[in-house]
């Protein structure tokens, strides 16, 4: 019995971490967030592709590494920890899983191999299946899509998109078609991409096995949620580390502020809240591949619980930094905002807990 990461997983995670430390420096993140260095984000994306990030979940027969979701989770954790300004969850986790479960043999051949060779990069828009806001939603008839998909992940560097209707049918569309309009949505978190996609008689290919079962889309959403939980886990750990370091150094009233119980207890609370999240996220990722009967509940609770813990940590870690925590100068807010975005996408905690309950009825 062994509960934890393998040497390979830790090694790969370290590589992603080191790469981000070198290339996604705070200065670079600021440039990307301010939009004044368009190529930096693409360079970082390419650098991580060189590490093999795209092929983790692609079966070996299609040129990938054929690893399990825990491997992807530790990468996501590292990306959260470094506020990695690069697409990951949509193109390299949700898309491969959706295609694996929903695609026909020829669709596997066509799409999975092209993800592993980097010819195709997918954005993913499944929000309307999870919870449709206002008048959003797409409809499929006569092989074309019409309507609007909101909150599409990683769409603007994508060659293709996976879009879903309310019934959970998944469609492949060409992101560069003239019948598609991709509108950038500006969120608080400028390290990630978020879009609205408007389809007008947009040619679409149905992933065949998604028309008679919602299982494929649920598999992809569960995996996406575990990735978001892992991302928040990494981001929270970074915020705690920074808060603890700051509290040891910053002096007021002639002593390090970390020697005051008011400050030290906030740090202890953050650590106590976060520590079990590691096990929850790893366990959820493991169940996704190896224990299907527990997988849904674990994925729901991982996303909802880590979102709640991370929200509290983001606030407390900022407060420990005092006024400096509030400034743009220190850049702590990049992690605060990343945690804020992770909390809402693919289902906010209340929506997900309702799903968690329904899996038990």
């Amino acid at each position, binding site marked *: *019995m*062994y*509960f*934890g*990461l*393998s040497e390979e997983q830790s090694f790969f995670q370290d590589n992603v971490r080191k790469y981000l430390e070198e290339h996604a420096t705070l200065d670079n993140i600021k440039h990307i967030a301010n939009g004044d260095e368009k190529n930096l984000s693409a360079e970082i994306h390419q650098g991580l592709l060189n590490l093999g990030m795209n092929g983790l979940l692609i079966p070996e027969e299609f040129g990938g590494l054929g690893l399990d979701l*825990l491997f992807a989770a530790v990468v996501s954790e590292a990306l959260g920890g470094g506020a990695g300004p690069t697409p990951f969850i949509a193109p390299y986790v949700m898309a491969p899983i959706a295609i694996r479960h929903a695609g026909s043999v020829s669709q596997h051949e066509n799409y999975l191999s092209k993800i592993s060779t980097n010819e195709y990069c997918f954005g993913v828009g499944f929000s309307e299946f999870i919870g449709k806001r206002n008048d959003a939603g797409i409809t499929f008839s006569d092989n074309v899509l019409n309507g609007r998909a909101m909150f599409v992940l990683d769409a603007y560097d994508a060659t293709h998109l996976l879009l879903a209707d309310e019934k959970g049918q998944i469609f492949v569309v060409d992101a560069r078609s003239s019948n598609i309009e991709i509108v950038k949505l500006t969120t608080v978190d400028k390290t990630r991409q978020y879009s609205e996609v408007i389809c007008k008689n947009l040619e679409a290919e149905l992933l065949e096995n998604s028309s008679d079962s919602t299982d494929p889309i649920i598999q992809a959403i569960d995996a996406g949620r575990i990735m978001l939980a892992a991302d928040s886990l990494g981001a929270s750990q970074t915020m705690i580390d920074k808060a*603890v370091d700051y*509290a*040891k150094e910053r002096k007021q009233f002639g*002593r*390090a502020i*970390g*020697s*005051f*119980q008011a400050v*030290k*207890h906030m*740090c*202890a*609370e953050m*650590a*106590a809240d976060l*520590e*079990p*999240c*590691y*096990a*929850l996220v*790893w*366990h959820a990722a*493991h169940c996704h591949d*190896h*224990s299907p009967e527990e997988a849904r*509940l*674990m994925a729901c*609770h991982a996303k*909802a*619980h880590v979102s*709640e813990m991370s929200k509290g940590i983001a606030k407390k870690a900022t407060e420990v930094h005092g006024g400096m925590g509030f400034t743009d100068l220190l850049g702590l807010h990049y992690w605060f905002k990343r945690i804020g975005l992770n909390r809402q996408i693919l289902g906010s905690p*209340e929506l997900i*807990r*309702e799903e*968690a*309950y329904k899996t*038990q009825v």
Partner: protein
Amino acid sequence: MDLEYGPEYQDFTKEVQSFCEKYEGLSFTDGSNNPLGSSGGSGGPKMSRSEWQKTLIENGYFARSVPKEYGGYGGEADILKSRIIAAEFSKSNTPGPMGGQGIDMLVPTLLEMGTKEQKEAYIKPTLHGEMIWCQGYSEPNAGSDLASLQTKGELVGDEWVINGQKIWTSTAQYSQMCFCLVRTEPDAPKHAGISYLLIPMDTPGIEIRPLVDMTLKAGFNEVFFTDVKIPRDNIVGKRGEGWAVANATLGHERGSLAPPDATMNRVNMLMHLMKEETLDGKPLIEHPIYRDRLMQIQGKVLAQQSHALRLLSAKLNPGTDVKIGKMIQKLTGTELRHELEGLAIDVMGEIGTLYEDSPHLKNDGTWQFIYMYFLGLIIGGGTSQIQKNIIAERGLGMPKEPKVEGA
């Protein structure tokens, strides 16, 4: 990640299951009221508590790694087997072994630091449930700051003469013995002046006064010592080493107060209750706010269960770093259990306030009782605030509070 125990353990699980079947419904000939053990069942075999302890030991289901010469099973410590035993016993209606501070704290302490004579004299009767112990640590003026304790021990001839008072002493009224921290070196610095003494509770000069707690049960006692004389050899470790002896086992207590599997059993019990109980004609579980609160807690407990697996794995695979992971257990486990019991009271509303033998009481009034009882556990054994100091200072390396002179 590999969560399988392996075939050897599957066989062991079956062996434990058939043992549990054989003794299902076991009841005790020496009464069902024992504060340290399960109350037993009905319809199964009958035996005394001591016979049951011996049966468990013979089969290797209790005191597994305690050497045979001291009354144990004499096997290798096997963490997975211990876990299987605990899980199978809790699933079946078979009473588990006795617990209590003698078994949980004194025995490991003696095994590590006791003399051969002490091991021979005390471990076997303690394991057999024939010698019950209480813990004499806290004093009215030495709570969180335990090392400031003032109960005095003077060596006069071949005897320690003890004077002072202990408080929060659970099970003192049932105990034959007390392991006690006593200041024997008044001129030494605070932590270096304490010794760990073993005191027979029938020694003249000991007075026990019950202390009723907020649950209205006398869970504790005050114990007064007036010229209590015990032999000089009743000391574990050397003079002035008592603080280190006590600390060797304090960590053991902190981990085991609120196991997440037990908390999950209560979550399941609450979910069941919420399907049965109605408000305005609708089951409580159909009320979205209550349902969401239940799901929030379920998520927290799942996180703690996964965390417990991680800690279990760290025990099996030495070298895994889970330092903070262990430190948070007492804090998070007791707080969560208290929160869960409190949620049950909230969903029941007025019914949740019923207590003792009131009409309309649900689940024997356990929700209110445990809600309050766990407040005691949050405070006892190092308060939540002390736990946070430990996590911050020893776990995160944060600076200590400057010392006040003379404290």
